[in-house]
């Protein structure tokens, strides 16, 4: 009544259920019970499938079907996937002693190789029809393989290209390289569109050459290393180096003199005619005094409407720790703003005004202009 394979699986499933019950009652261990019950469910499922499939054997009443049955096919053909699994296992081992990334890549290779090998083995014996088997494999794997392969290819292209761009010695060279690559891409695309008769081989060969060249370029650029990228100084650097004076610094030379998309600021402070005036939301008047909330970042937009370069500065009088060390920067300032220019300054004051004897005030370096700040 039952085939040999079915008997084995039914027996194993029954044993697993009995073991799970005995273990659960006698030991009460959660982990062990979960494992045994899982095994019992899996074996029961397999047993059920096998009973229905009768060990993939054709019925004994249909001897003519034996030759075409899946079970009658030769064993699966040799495969390259075990090679990937072996490579992955080696990489994993290397990763254990060198770098975590190698371990992760090796693990991915082992999992991918094992899955592909399993599916290949299954598909080649799915039926007696090789065409059907190949289609069955494609239907199962293509939805996964194609997006993953596409993503890997895109990542390789982007990464290699980015290495090339970072490795080029000057900004001009990067612009030129970008123009060349863009022109090539456009040229090849146009050629393909115009010359519709181009063979797949020609097209594949061309793209392969481009890809290999790109990867080679990326490898070379990666080995040479990135060009030295000069960091841009910020207003925070200016304050840290105590460069909030009227003197122009290197950072000032490169500072942007316009501010884009800065809406909803706490106040706009304008420097004009040796005076500082604040415009705050809600009021139409300009103020000679500004109220800022304590311990809250306040964005101030500074406009220089004088004829000279100007830098907005504020002393923060930060609270100190038990050792008398300040808990924050002592002052912040904008870069030197040219006439007609604007800059944003973010201010955080952590002390109320009544604590600081001299009070808080925005000033312009090298000028007597002052705008009182009240911190409640």
């Amino acid at each position, binding site marked *: 009544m039952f085939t040999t394979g079915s008997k084995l699986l039914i027996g194993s499933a029954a044993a697993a259920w009995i073991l799970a019950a005995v273990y659960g009652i006698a030991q009460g261990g959660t982990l062990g019970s979960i494992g045994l019950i899982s095994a019992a469910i899996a074996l029961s499922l397999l047993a059920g499938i096998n009973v229905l499939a009768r060990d993939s054997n054709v019925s004994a009443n249909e001897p003519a079907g034996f030759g075409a049955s899946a079970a009658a096919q030769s064993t699966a053909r040799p495969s390259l996937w075990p090679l990937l699994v072996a490579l992955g296992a080696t990489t994993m081992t290397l990763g254990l002693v060198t770098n975590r990334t190698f371990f992760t890549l090796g693990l991915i290779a082992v999992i991918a190789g094992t899955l592909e090998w399993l599916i290949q083995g299954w598909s080649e014996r799915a039926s007696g029809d090789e065409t059907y088997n190949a289609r069955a494999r494609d239907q199962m794997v293509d939805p996964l393989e194609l997006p993953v392969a596409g993503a890997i290819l895109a990542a390789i292209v982007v990464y290699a290209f980015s290495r090339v761009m970072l490795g080029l010695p000057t900004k001009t060279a990067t612009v030129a390289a970008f123009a060349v690559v863009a022109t090539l891409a456009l040229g090849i695309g146009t050629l393909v569109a115009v010359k519709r008769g181009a063979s797949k081989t020609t097209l594949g060969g061309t793209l392969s050459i481009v890809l290999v060249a790109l990867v080679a370029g990326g490898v070379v650029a990666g080995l040479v290393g990135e060009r030295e990228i000069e960091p841009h100084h910020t207003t925070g650097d200016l304050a840290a180096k105590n460069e909030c004076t009227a003197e122009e610094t290197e950072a000032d030379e490169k500072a942007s003199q316009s501010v884009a998309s800065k809406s909803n600021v*706490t106040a706009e402070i304008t420097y004009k005619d040796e005076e500082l005036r604040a415009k*705050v939301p809600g009021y139409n008047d300009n103020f*000679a005094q500004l109220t800022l909330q304590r311990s809250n970042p306040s964005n101030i937009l500074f406009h220089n409407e004088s004829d000279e370069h100007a830098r907005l500065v504020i002393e923060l009088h930060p609270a100190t720790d038990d050792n008398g060390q300040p808990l924050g920067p002592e002052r912040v300032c904008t870069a030197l703003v040219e006439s007609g220019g604007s800059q944003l300054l973010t201010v955080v004051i*952590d002390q*109320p005004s009544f*604590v600081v004897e001299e009070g808080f005030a925005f000033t312009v370096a090298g000028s007597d202009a002052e705008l009182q700040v009240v911190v409640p």
Partner: protein
Amino acid sequence: MSRQVTQPEKVRTDLIQTELPTPRSGGSRLRTAAFGLGATALLASCASDAPQDTWAPEGKYAQDIHNLQWPIFMIAGIVGVIVFGVVLFVVIKFKDRGQPIPEQGHGNALIEYVFIAIPALLLAGIAVPTVAEVISLNDTDNADCVINVTGQQWWWEYDYPVDASNNICGFAPTGDAAPIVTSGQMVIPVGAKVVIRGTSRDVIHSFWVPKLNGKRDMVPGRVHTWNFEAEQPGIYAGQCAEFCGLSHANMRMEIVALDDADFQAWIDNQLEPYQSPEAGTLAATGEQTFISQCSRCHQIDGLTNADGELVVASPEQFVWSGAAPNLTNLMTRNTFAGASWDLLTEDCRADVWEAPPAEFGAKYLEGVTKSCLNEIDLKEWLRNAPAKKPMYTDPESLADTDGKTRGMPYLALSEDQINELVAYLIERK
């Protein structure tokens, strides 16, 4: 044979019909559910105590929104009834009764034009006044009164800046002008265009007092302005309308509208110099307890220590948002802990909230008296704040915030210390 089989079955059926209740049909259940739902909606709409009713505006801006939403709601309702009616008619009229499929038609220019034109006209009719109203609501220039509103987990801080004319909200203080900092209740003058400049110290919050205006998000690093104008003296309730963490539901706010004379009195009272409790009293002991236990985070303006030095709170060192409520005039407010609990007992609260407009100001300005103090909630709060209002204060789980709490931590105060603090705080007005 067949008679022998059918006979007992018939008897059984009779028994069921006579002795057992008839099972309810699917249609009956549906009707009951619909009735229940309708009755619930009807009863909910009859709520008498609904301080945050969006359909009961009591200020200019809320009224403007109301004037817009009513006709839109009506139009939407009529369209809904027509659409459902037509669908119902079609479903019943053309129900499949085995009749032949009628002749299929394709394309009727007139019907298509009409069906495009009607929704387009309806949408245009809704869009034009809506856009105009949105622009109008966002006009926050020419304010009579400007108040800075700052949200943080889970309370609101209000500070009143001094304007270019040395006024606060357009009112000249009797004494020296100085910014006022308060929390929980935002006090405004009746009939004045009040513009709030809102921001946040930690996450995004939303300021919403439905009877006076719609919602406005408060975003860290940005200042968003919003208008309020109250028609009558009174208290208007609201709550944070943007999920902001564990105690979002406990982040409430109240706007208190006072007439001009009462608002002037409120400003003058807020700016009065600090008065130390009488020496030797329980309140005087409470002052020392406050300095030792509370003043690291909570500021009381003018409070000095035994050496005569001003006591300065440093909430930025202990609290993630960098702020804790200023308690200088705590008992001039009716609420505490993010306006989630009343400082007034139930009766006294009702006396203030339900006072006629003409009497409201006087009752509110009376503040919290000893006989009206809600000691139970206040003491529970002092005993174990995180147990009363969920907050992130467990010292073992503050690694992400450099050991700083989000909310008031458990202070392990003794009952004596709690009594001392209550005696001290009741004088803060």
